[in-house]
């Protein structure tokens, strides 16, 4: 394969692999806005346009977050007069958190799989209902005879526990 062709191939692969982290990055900053896909699409466009400027020896995600951050600021500016949005201080703090863990995605995903196996049957059932069967808290509440607030608190604690477990495992793996 020609060098330039190989580079393009690697770029496509990295852009593809970056979609989920970019989606999480933008969603977190937009606080669940329905415009996440639009901002992601704009970010992808920018990344395609600047593909030649990407240095394959550099971490792709950190480079891509720059473009996403810019697109988020543009979006925020357009929204700020009509809708409540996070302050720039919040966005900056979120950006820093994502950059700090940008290249550990694969290890984190693998650790998540191991941590899921340690959950109780009931916790796994809740996750299956929400993430695999895509049930809303409302319908889960009806089926499990509990309130949405109680379910929200349970998911909050499950996520908290999983993240602690992931960090422990990553830390363990790093020695």
């Amino acid at each position, binding site marked *: 394969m020609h060098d330039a062709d190989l580079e393009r191939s690697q770029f496509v692969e990295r852009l593809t692999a970056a979609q989920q982290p970019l989606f999480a990055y933008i969603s977190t900053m937009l606080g669940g806005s329905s415009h996440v896909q639009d901002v992601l699409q704009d970010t992808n466009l920018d990344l395609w346009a600047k593909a030649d400027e990407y240095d394959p020896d550099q971490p792709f995600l950190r480079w891509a977050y720059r473009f996403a951050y810019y697109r988020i600021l543009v979006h925020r500016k357009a929204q700020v007069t009509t809708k409540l949005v996070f302050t720039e201080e919040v966005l900056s703090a979120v950006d820093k958190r994502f950059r700090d863990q940008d290249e550990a995605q694969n290890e984190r*995903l693998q650790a998540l799989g191991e941590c*899921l196996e340690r959950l109780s049957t009931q916790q796994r059932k809740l996750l299956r209902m929400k993430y695999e069967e895509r049930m809303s808290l409302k319908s889960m509440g009806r089926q499990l005879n509990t309130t949405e607030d109680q379910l929200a608190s349970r998911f909050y604690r499950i996520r908290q526990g999983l993240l602690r477990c992931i960090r422990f495992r990553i830390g363990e793996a790093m020695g």
Partner: protein
Amino acid sequence: MQTQEELFARIVADVVDGVATDADVAELNAMFDENPQWLEKYVDQCDAHYLLQWRLTPATGVPQIESIELPEAVVASRRNNPLWLSRVAAGVAIAATAAIAFWLGTWWIATTKLIATVNLIATVTRLDDVEWADGNQESQHGSRLTPGTIAASAGTCELTLDSGVVVACEAPFELELVDPMRINLVTGRLRAKVPPHAKGFAIDTRDSWLVDQGTEFGVDASKQGGTSVFVFDGKVDVQAKSHHKQTAIRRLLRGEALRMMVNESSMERVMQIVSEDSRLGWSTDSSDSLISVADNIRGPDSLKYYEVVPRGFAEDVMAFVDRPYEWNGINNRGLPPMLRGADYVKTFIDDRHASTIRITLTIMEPVDLFVFLDDRAAPPEWLLRDFEDTGEKIGLDEKPTEFYPGGDRLGVGPGDSVDQIYHVWRRQLQEPGMVALGAISGSSGRGGGRRSMYGIAARRLPVDASVAP
């Protein structure tokens, strides 16, 4: 009254579900302002949520670049460098569309866009020491895959198709991803777990068509020809391919298996599989186990297979191939030490009434051979003759099923929810060889005809005990 943490948990739930209101965002801004730890917790929650979505909801959770719209300007700037398109063309289809908009009844605005479509259909969700074969898709954990060949010479990997089907493959294997609902397995072993909404998922091999009907199953496509299919849960429709004739579709249920050969246009019984401590969890290679098992009552048309579990006897292990029942210690002392870690055979509970059954065990090394007999059945003649009652007992924990409502629930650990008591019988075999076990039907015990099938286990003799005097 709702605590601040409960309020925060509720807002986070709204945010990740995409239904947060302005009031939610205002509340979050105020909390972040009041104490930066809330911001840390917010990012933690989002972080964990999107990881979970990535892992568990591949069909919708992973955003895809299946329709990146490239403006004319971007495309034009690339036209002088055709190389960028050559890779794109490999997995990316380029289409030109004209979008025409009507504006205020007076203006026609026409723009032309190029739409690049990357057809991504699966995600690599686990890799264990994989060495990819040359010339195929090389992927990392989390990589998204396009249709095409994927092959490895070592290791195991797990792919999650966008249909929700999870496929674990063990090298060496070669398969072609056709679309999220179809795989061509050229060679190798895999285990597929198909969620209910992906019913109809199909695997094509040289010898057979397999169409899932909501299940978990294993497939072994041999390089030399021949495909074996094992159903671990649910059901699968299989059809042998034939050069000469139309073959019938067979439906396999839990605990059933078939081997198909295209050259012979045949389907034949698979007598046993061996459980493995691996991602796939099964193998047809019995060289790692002390026992090999066969019986006399099923001809080649039978679909039932025994399962041998090397070193697997422990609390809460499955007892039978055809029921979700478990072996357990009868009290908190647990299973008798002599049985822990033994090789064991999952038999068929339905054979409890087979009056002419003869199970033949091939024993590979000197062993203590154990038979577990339901307390409700009287010991049959062959057991009294060849085995001794050790005085030890173990329990069977039964789970009610649609057709067999016995038991209450599956307990966890020893002494929890034990439904039946089994006596442990032993026979010491100083030499490798063959042993025949008979039926329990016909023997009259206190159960008035109600009893379960016996269990079988073997434990290697210590070296000094295996030396003949």
